[in-house]
């Protein structure tokens, strides 16, 4: 193989892949906002509808992002807060927190009444737990309701870990994932409470 061929190969591949990468970056930039909206609408809205009861606005449009910490590389981690309002007053504040279950990460949407500091309801948004066992964290209505109407100062760990939550039998890891997510969420809420200005 001559040097000329070699250079041509390297050059062609470099140009083609750079053009492809540039094109993709452009498409990604254009579609990003729309994709965010769609993901919120189709993944989070069902959970939001489940936990928010008393409101007359569109919580998806009334959302705000707040820096809630830093990741391992020192970049800001943002959490999206959805505000449910009635007659202009904020009645609940909903946001997502995560824990790890048996089959992967579990996302939990938590609604908190900012005035009383009370957890109104929680609902699972994303999960990949074993169907029929771990998936009961979604299907079993009694489990998520244990978190409702408790003050944010309550201990949301499982009873086995000294908390107030009864795990679903046969799905301890999944239950613990949810309770970790709620505990983290409540902690996060208490840290950023002042920044929310409610």
């Amino acid at each position, binding site marked *: 193989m001559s040097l000329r*061929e070699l250079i*041509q*190969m390297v050059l*062609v*591949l470099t140009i*083609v*892949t750079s053009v*492809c990468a540039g*094109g*993709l970056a452009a*498409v*990604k930039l254009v*579609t990003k906002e*729309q*994709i965010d909206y*769609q*993901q919120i*609408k*189709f993944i989070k809205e069902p959970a939001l509808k489940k936990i928010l009861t008393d409101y007359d606005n569109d919580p998806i449009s009334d959302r705000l992002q707040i820096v809630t910490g830093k990741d391992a590389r020192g970049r800001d981690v943002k959490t999206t807060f959805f505000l449910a309002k009635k007659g202009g007053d904020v009645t609940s504040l909903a946001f997502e927190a995560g824990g790890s279950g048996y089959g992967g990460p579990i996302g939990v949407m938590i609604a908190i009444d900012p005035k009383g500091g009370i957890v109104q309801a929680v609902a699972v948004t994303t999960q990949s737990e074993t169907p029929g066992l771990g998936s009961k964290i979604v299907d079993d209505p009694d489990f998520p309701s244990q978190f409702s109407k408790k003050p944010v100062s309550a201990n949301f760990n499982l009873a086995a870990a000294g908390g107030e939550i009864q795990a679903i039998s046969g799905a301890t890891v999944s239950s613990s994932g949810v309770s970790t997510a709620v505990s983290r969420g409540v902690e996060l809420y208490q840290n950023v409470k002042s920044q929310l200005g409610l």
Partner: protein
Amino acid sequence: MAARIVNEFTKGFWKEIAPLRFALGICPSLAVSTKVESALGMGFAVVFVLCMSNVLISAVRNLVPDKVRIAVFISIIATGVVIVELVMQAYFYPLFLVLGIWIPLIVVNCIVLGRAEAFARKNTIPLSLSDGMGMGLGFTLSLVVISSIREILGSGTWLGMLVMPEAYPGFGFLLRPPGAFVIFGLILGIMNVISARIEKKTA
């Protein structure tokens, strides 16, 4: 020239219809053919990727050294696929959720790379475009045929509309993977019988 373009276009529908003649790309055709709606979504995604990759590959066919051609083809195809994925995610989110992993897997769909390798790298842009269009629509057609049979007999609906009597219980077997193979095999057999008849007549 015009006749050739038409010819390259129409061959994708019967003579060289990819999944049924060459058994290329049957993996997605079996997986997403439980509903006509997802079959159509998948089909049009493949049409777009095929047209785009065929045109671009044909455009650069004289510049790319033979030794790196596969890498170049795959880069171009993968770009097209990611564009489809992003656009689908942005504007057809429910469809994106249904098709899921099958969208990124178009990259390794044999039809797309096959047409690049067998056709686009040796032919002009208009011919490659018509070839890609024909092959893609042929793929869509096979998917729609398979999924129509599966959806009508399996769940009694077509494109979500009820077509069978209300009391029809649904033939659940067809909606599961083995049902896909059975339907696929039956269609293959019927096509071979018809082709043999046609050949006999013309011979």
